[in-house]
């Protein structure tokens, strides 16, 4: 994605108070990683599976951090047991920053990703996770802040699905 967009997203996360991010690197939004790494506002935790990305974030949230878990769309399926157990059932607020691979607007969509894209919203709805699709940088800070406000109000995971301009 465009450098300005990456900066906008990182700025939005900082402005929303997010200070702890677990992640498994992926292809669409990876430009945010060096920016997050260079910003001391964030405690960054690399993981080997999105499943533990969610559970580690839940532990940090219970320890007082404002947490996010950054993952590819596939990671929602990998971590859905964890999202359900420590996120939804236990009621722990966390922001899921999801690259919406395989969606209509994914500029790198192919037969490798399409199935994961078309099932992603039914998957989130099956887990009862609220979500918003974000296609461009318009009012990005406000959207990230809104999602963080929602997750804190609900005390549940809330997902932002990034596609279109974010997948260029």
């Amino acid at each position, binding site marked *: 994605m465009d450098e300005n967009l990456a900066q906008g997203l990182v700025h939005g996360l900082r402005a929303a108070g997010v200070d702890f991010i677990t992640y498994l690197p992926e292809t669409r939004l990876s430009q945010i990683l060096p920016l997050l790494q260079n910003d001391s506002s964030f*405690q960054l935790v*690399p993981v080997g599976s999105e499943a533990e990305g969610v559970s580690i974030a839940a532990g*940090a949230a219970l320890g007082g951090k404002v947490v996010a878990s950054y993952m590819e769309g596939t990671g929602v399926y990998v971590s859905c047991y964890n999202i359900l*157990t420590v996120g939804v*059932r*236990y009621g722990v607020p966390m922001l899921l920053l999801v690259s919406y691979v395989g969606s209509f607007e994914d500029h790198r969509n192919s037969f490798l990703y399409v199935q994961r894209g078309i099932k992603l919203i039914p998957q989130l709805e099956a887990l009862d996770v609220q979500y918003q699709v974000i296609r461009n940088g318009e009012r990005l800070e406000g959207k990230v802040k809104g999602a963080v406000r929602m997750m*804190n109000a609900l005390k549940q995971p809330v997902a932002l699905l990034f596609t279109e301009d974010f997948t260029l």
Partner: protein
Amino acid sequence: MIRYECFEWLAPLMTDQLVVTSLSGQRVEWGHLSKREADLNLGSMGNALAVGIGLALALPQRKVFVFESDGSVLLSLFNLPTLANLNPPNMAVFVFDNQAYSGTRISYPSATAGKTDLAAVAKGSGIEHSVTVSALADFKKEATAALHDGGLRFVVCKIEESVGHRNITRSDVDLLETKYRFVRYLERTEGKPIFQGRG
């Protein structure tokens, strides 16, 4: 070694350490012996180790004990390389390994009943202090060190497949109650809000 005897010895020694438990008999036994607000009963397999990592990173000044079972660690084995590389010095993991999925009631063997050595897996993942204990005296030594010294510890406790926990009346404290009790305790002792937002 009997898990209940380990807990009976350890529970009175705990002060402000945070404890995360997964599922299985250890959840029931620890919940019976320790009624502390600092105990977080997750009630699910494959999550306690990771949630413990998150707590240890968020609260580096607090010691975090994680009580796991062999089946639960095997379900989320990818936690071990992550734990090794993060290397939180305020964390002690005790895996009570009875080599069986005892909840099945048919004593179905787990991988540790076969060729798998969890301490060796942890060691190979990069966790330096990774040991196996099978006598109560050795458990006491490791737990004492975990209480008083720093450094990540991963202790596989080989235990008998006791079913004593089935004679303990199960707690009626709901998962959400456990969570809020834990969170309010942390807010009080850490002097900071955990959950954001007011009504």
